[in-house]
Each structure stands twice: as C-alpha cells, then as structure tokens.
C-alpha cells in the first residue's frame, strides 16, 4: 500500500521509509508559530505578528491582529487607513489589492476578501510545496460595509474558531435590524435613550449601515466610533448620518435617540449624560444567556463579525484543504469535529489572537482606538 500526498502545486511529497510504509515528507510548514507570530520563513514575513518584525502582512486592523512597531506593513488599500490609525506614523504601509499577486522571497502572496470588517483579507501564500491560506478572522454573513468572503482553494487552511461550537448560530441580518428597531421604538415611547454598545471598528458601522434609512430618530456616536466612521467614509462606505455625541447633540437626542458606543463605555459616567437609558450589547456572545446576564445589559443582540458554526464548516469545506490548522477560540472541539466527523485532517495552532474579545471582553481594543 502506498499513500501519496499531492499538493496543489503538483509536487509529490512522499518518502519511502521501510518496506511498503510511506509517510509524508517532513517538509517545513510554510507558516508556523514563532515568538513573534505566524512566520513565513520562505517569504521572510509574518502574518499579524504580535511582536515587531520587518514585514507584517495584516489580515485586518483589529488590535489583536494589527500591532504597532513593525518596520513595514502590507495590507489591502481598504484596510490601510484603519491600519494607519493603529501603527506609528513612521511605519511603511504598502497595499495589495484583493486578488493581486506579489512575489515576496520564495513565495507568492495574494489577499482575498474575508468578510470580517472593511479591508479584511485572507492571506494566500503559494509555493511549489503547496498553497496555504491564513484566513485571519472571517464571516460568511453579508455585510454592507465590506467585501464578502471569497472561498480560496488551498492545501492548508488556517482558520479561526472564535465561535467553534454548534450552539453559536446567528440570526439573519433582517431579523437583527428589526429587533434593534423594535427595541429603539419601545425606548423612545418610554422616553429613554437607546445606548447600543458594539465594537467601534466594523460592528458599529455594520449596524449603522443596516439601520440605513430606517432610523427612528437622531443617531449619535461615541468618539471612538466617530473616528472610525471617518475612516470608513474615506474608503467610500455609505453610512447614515451619525453625529459625534457632543454636549449639544447629547442634549438634543436625550430620551429619543440611538447612541452607538464601545462596550467599555457601559457603566461609566459618560452614559449618564443621556438621562434614562436602555442599554443593548451587540455581540456573538449574546447568543448565550449567561454572558448576556453577566454583562448587565438590558438587551443582547446576537451579531458577530466572526463566522458561526455553520459558517466555519462551510468555509473550511469550500477551501478544500487536505489539512486544517485551527487557531484562537474553541480550538479543541473544532479540531476533533473536523477529524472525526468531517474526515478532514486538523490540528491546533497556538497563536496570540483573541477572537471576539473573549467571553469577558473588557475592551482594550476600544481603548486603543479612543
């Protein structure tokens, strides 16, 4: 019996050890974890490194994926303005349009939409020994503020697993927006301001765009959201009017308006300016009653910029990889499920990413952006 493992590049990687037993050749992985981050030695770059490096290829501008200090960065043109807010002015940011190929060292790199937030990308790395895709964070649900995910075929797929359990399933966007509007309507009728907490990069804009022309009254945003709205505007993303919550605006919208703020604003004196408020939290974790109640928000809205369980399985299947490496989230269950139920060879890959703030997000991300 002879197993042959054939990469998409066509190179046959097998070695005869003894008798008829054949094992895969121990070729070095194209990407592996180092103290700096996910390294690609053949290209001499890192993907979303957590320590300073020479060249950082960035999947998206969330704090746990885009850290300051590297000499040069490569990201999408859409993601560049967001990344610029995250890194020092001196750093070089180069851009690579979706689908464009660039030779870096011994590999060819291209970026493909991941559907996570504006400018988010899956990093495809091609080499004679095989093609790898580091997906970063991704989602399959439609999002009017960013390009939708495109499946990218590969030999090895590196996936996140933030919501890698079948209890995580997201309602449809239309239901979500209807729920938010109904909540707002009820608050307005009771003379309460609606304070909706959401991550200021991506989630806030997605909710604004979802509400679009159906706003029931004035919308104001926290400073952290306001800055990022400007970056979205620069990139040409249409958002409904949402004023910065200055003292005058605050006074005007009190009791009837919708305010979008980072989760860390919840429970701070800043909230008191709005008089009586009803608080909502938009997060995938709101799918679970325990996290909903622990955070002490009046309402939880289930919406995430990460894929739900079905979205993960669907994306992994579409990649068609013979090997899947699972990072941050519910790593063990997803690895076991892929191996035992899907017949896909999967293993864990340790990284320093955090997913959707972890179950107990305290909001370092918004602090970094505020």
């Amino acid at each position, binding site marked *: 019996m002879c197993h042959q493992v054939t990469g998409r590049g066509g190179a046959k990687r097998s070695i005869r050890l003894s008798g008829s037993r054949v094992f895969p050749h121990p070729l070095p992985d194209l990407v592996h974890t180092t103290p700096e981050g996910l390294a690609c030695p053949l290209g001499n770059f890192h993907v979303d490194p957590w320590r300073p490096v020479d060249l950082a290829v960035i999947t998206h501008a969330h704090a746990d994926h885009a850290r300051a200090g590297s000499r040069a960065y490569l990201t999408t043109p859409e993601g560049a303005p967001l990344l610029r807010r995250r890194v020092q002015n001196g750093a070089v940011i180069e851009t690579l349009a979706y689908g464009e190929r660039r030779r870096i060292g011994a590999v060819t790199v291209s970026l493909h939409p991941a559907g996570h937030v504006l400018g988010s990308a899956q990093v495809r790395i091609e080499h004679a020994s095989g093609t790898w895709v580091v997906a970063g964070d991704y989602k399959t649900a439609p999002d009017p503020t960013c390009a939708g995910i495109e499946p990218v075929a590969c030999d090895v797929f590196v996936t996140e697993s933030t919501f890698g*359990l079948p209890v995580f399933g997201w*309602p449809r966007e239309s239901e979500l927006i209807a729920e938010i509007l109904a909540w707002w309507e009820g608050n307005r009728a009771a003379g309460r301001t609606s304070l909706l907490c959401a991550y200021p990069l991506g989630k806030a804009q997605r909710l604004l765009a979802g509400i679009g022309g159906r706003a029931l009254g004035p919308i104001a945003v926290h400073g952290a959201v306001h800055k990022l709205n400007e970056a979205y505007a620069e990139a040409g993303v249409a958002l409904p009017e949402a004023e910065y919550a200055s003292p005058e605006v605050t006074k005007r919208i009190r009791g009837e308006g919708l305010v979008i703020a980072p989760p860390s604003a919840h429970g701070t004196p800043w909230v008191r300016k709005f008089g009586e408020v009803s608080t909502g939290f938009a997060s995938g974790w709101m799918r679970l*009653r*325990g996290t909903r*109640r622990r955070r*002490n928000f009046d309402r939880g809205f289930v919406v995430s910029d990460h894929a739900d369980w079905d979205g993960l399985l669907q994306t992994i299947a579409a990649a068609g990889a013979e090997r899947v490496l699972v990072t941050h989230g519910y790593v063990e269950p997803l690895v076991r*499920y892929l191996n035992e139920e899907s017949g896909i060879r999967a293993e864990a890959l340790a990284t320093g990413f955090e997913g959707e703030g972890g179950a*107990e997000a305290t909001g370092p991300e918004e602090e970094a952006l505020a």
Partner: protein
Amino acid sequence: MKGFAELYRRLDSTRRTNARLEALRDHFRAVDPADGAWALHYLLGRRGRRVVGSRQMRAWVAKHGGQPEWLVDECYDAVGDLAETVALLAPGRGDEGEAHGLSLAEVIEERVLALRDLDDAAREELVVATWRRFDLLERLLYVKLITGGFRVGVSRGLVARALAELAGTDQATMAHRLAGRWEPEPAAFVRLMAGDAAGDDPLRPYPFFLASPVPESVSDLGAARDFVAEWKWDGIRVQAVRRGEGHLLWSRGEDVIDAAFPEISAAIAELPPGTVLDGELLAWRDGAPLPFHSLQRRLQRKSVGAKLRQDVPVRMIAYDLLEFGGQDWRERPLEQRQARLREVLEALGRPEVAVAEVVDAERWEALAELRAESRARGVEGLMLKRRGSPYRAGRTRGDWWKWKVEPFTVDAVLVYAQRGHGRRASLYTDYTFAVHGDDGELVPVAKAYSGLSDAEIRKVDAFVRRNITERFGPVRAVTPELVFELAFEGIQPSPRHKAGLALRFPRMARWRHDKTVAEADSLASLRELLAREAGAR
C-alpha cells in the same frame, strides 16, 4: 406558552424593579386562569418534578440535533446550563416557523405531566415533536420544565405586590394568600385573585419575618436596652398554625412538614383554636440541641419510625405569637406577644413545644460576652429584637437582627474548578478546596461558590483556564497554587468524604495572595477542631 415566554424574557432581561413589576402586571392582567395558576406555581418556586433525566436529554439532543454526544458535552461545558444547551442544539421551529398556539396549561398538562405515563420511545417522540414546534426561548423553558429545573429570579414579595395591585388587595394579604395551600388549577387562581377573602386557605401561615445580619458594629443599632435578646438556634424555622378543627406545621419554604415531625404536630393540635406560633424546630436531647446534621435525618421524611424518633428527638422552640383567639396579633408590641406566648405554652404544658428564653443583659459588652459562649451552647449567636416592634413580613430591616458568632476559618488550596450556572455560566466559579493530608497530599475538604467579587472571579477564571491539568467531565483539576481563606459555620464528621469531615456553609472569605500552598492548613488541624467542637457539646 407565548405569553409565559414573554414574561420570562422580560423578567430575565432587566433588574429594574419597576420594569419587572410591570412585566408581572402585564402578564397576569389578562391571563387565562389555567395558565395563570401554572405561571404562579413556577414563579413562586414551587418545584416541578423531574420527568426526564439529563443523560437522556443529552442523548436525545445529540440524536435529533445531529451532533456527536461529546460535542453536546463540550457545548454544555461552554454554555453552563443544560436546558439552554439543549434548546440551542435541538431541532426547532426557527424564528420564522409557524406559531403553535399552545397555552402554558396545555404544554404542562399534555406535554410535561403527560410524559410520566409514557414509555421511553413515546416520551422521546413527544419531546422532540414539541421542540420542533417551539422557538428558542420556548424550547429553553420546556426543557427546564421537564427536567424539573425551572426557576425564575423573582422574589415572592414582588409577585405578591403585582398580584395585589391587580386583585385590589394589599401586598400583605396577597403574600399571606400565596403562602397557603393551593393547587395550580384555574379555580385556585380565581380565588387567589379575588378581591375578598373568599378563597383564603383556613390554615395558611403568615409570611415569615426575617432578620438581617447586624451591620459592622452592633452599637450602630442603638442602645442594647432597646432590644430583647434571644439565642439564635441552628434548626429550621417553622410556623405552627392551629385554627378551627385543624392544625398544620409549616416550614419557611412553605411546605407542610407534619409528617416528618408527628410529636410536634400532636402537641400543636392541643393549642386553642385561633393560635399561630413562630419558632425554630431543633433536634433536642437532655436539655440541649443536637447538631444540625441530626435534624437532617428527619427532614424530607414522609413518615418517621419509632427508632428514628428515639434517635433524634425534636423540639419546637417558640419565640413569637402571631395570632391568638383568632385575632391577628402581629401589630401588637413584641413584649405583649411574648408575654401571651408564655401563658399559652404554660397552659399547653407539652415539653415538645417550649418557649424561647430571653437572654438578659443591659449592655452590648455583656451581650458580647454571652455571644462568645454560643458555640459551647450549640447556638449560632444571638437574635436582637427591638422592643415594642410589630411582627413584620419578609426581610424588612430595622427591628430584627441576627448577631452570629464569628465563623471558623481555614486556609485552603484551590484544586478543582467547574463552570457556574445562570449568570455565571461559562466562567469557572465553582471551586473545590483542599488542605494538606497526613502524607503531604492535598485532600479536598470543601466546595465554595460565593464570597469573591466579580473582578476576583474573572482573575480566578483566567488562572483556571491557563492551569488545567486534568479533566473529569465538567470538572477541571488545576495546578495547586492559589490559597483562599474559607469561612464556615461548623464542622461535622462525614464518612462520605475522603477527608472524613465536612464543613458547614463554606464560602471564600478572602484570597490569600500572601500565602503559598505550603502555608495552607492541614487536615490534622481540622480534625482537632472537629474533636474540640464535639467535646464542647
């Protein structure tokens, strides 16, 4: 069912009293009496019986939700609540499916209680068919109903307040009515909601008045001479109701417990009609109380044999008179009630019902000295009752205070952690603590869940996640590193535990960042304490 789910959602989503009150009023204002009776039954925490076990439930959801059982367990581990896990994984109607139109009473009678009479296959079929007709929240409630785990975080007082407003009575009257015996039937609900006293249970108890712990310093309460002091007994709180031809012994959980304590029941039968006593039930021998674990042998019994009655004799120590001559005495001053109580019990002349002795002292210092004798006397400390005060309802602060003796403490090491439930689901909040055994190994001695702040819980949770060494089902063994001071109220022998002893009411008093594992206490020192405590009795 839809209305009940909506009520649950509203109660679950806010802690504002007014919003919760409004949710209760909205629900009960127009509710069908059959549904109202069941809703009330569950809101008041009257437990349903477990019809389907959790193991079976997991197997069904795995099979019909199309997931391997190990993944169901992983999900349970992350969610922390079995009913919620099942609801999330079970095949369901989804949010766009057709509404089912089943009422709460129909669901309970035809899909919960009816399960009892079915064989396993028929049960499975009915449960799965019901899942398919329900949305997510309804499935959650349904699973809780059939596994007997239904609870709503709403106080009896709030329910009574909402219903009183709808019925046009006052809250105290409604609380009193709800405390009586009633079955979850439409007629009972109509009676409860009646504006007049037509449906009152003739043998209903009064709402218990509960004491609050004394604040930081007892002298903050005012002068010692403004209070009557009594020993705080470590038994179960009871009310003895004697009216008309009948009599009942009620526990604070509003269960009738005559069957477990026939000798007390026989004694109160001889009280004059129209008498209600409040007091403590204790295991008692030779003029002194037996430890609480003796009393536990008699609780929950449907009948009590001669041997058990002999092994664990019991006594009621009465300390208040709530009704006399058919009149409500609760508004009368404390001393007047106590004086009449003494006369009533003297006339009764039954040793099984004794009057609580007053602890005489004029000054806090003298009381403090007496309180220090509590352990030797087998009591928990002192009760302080304001002179001239009425008998109030519920946990109203100001007139009754419990001044408990300082707890015991032990420094123990965190060795196992498990995720919590409800608000704490998905965080590691339930801990097992160990002390040093005779051969240097760590021996678990207590489980504790309370006492840490939310911030501390998050820190311990983060530690647990980083330091898991082994997994046993939902339990995680962690590197022994964190030391906590546990406070506890008592210690008793327990052959069921490896340590051979069990702590009563253990909780985390503080996180001893300053102590290393080597500095934690030993099992030998706890054994000494146990011996000392046994000797003190």
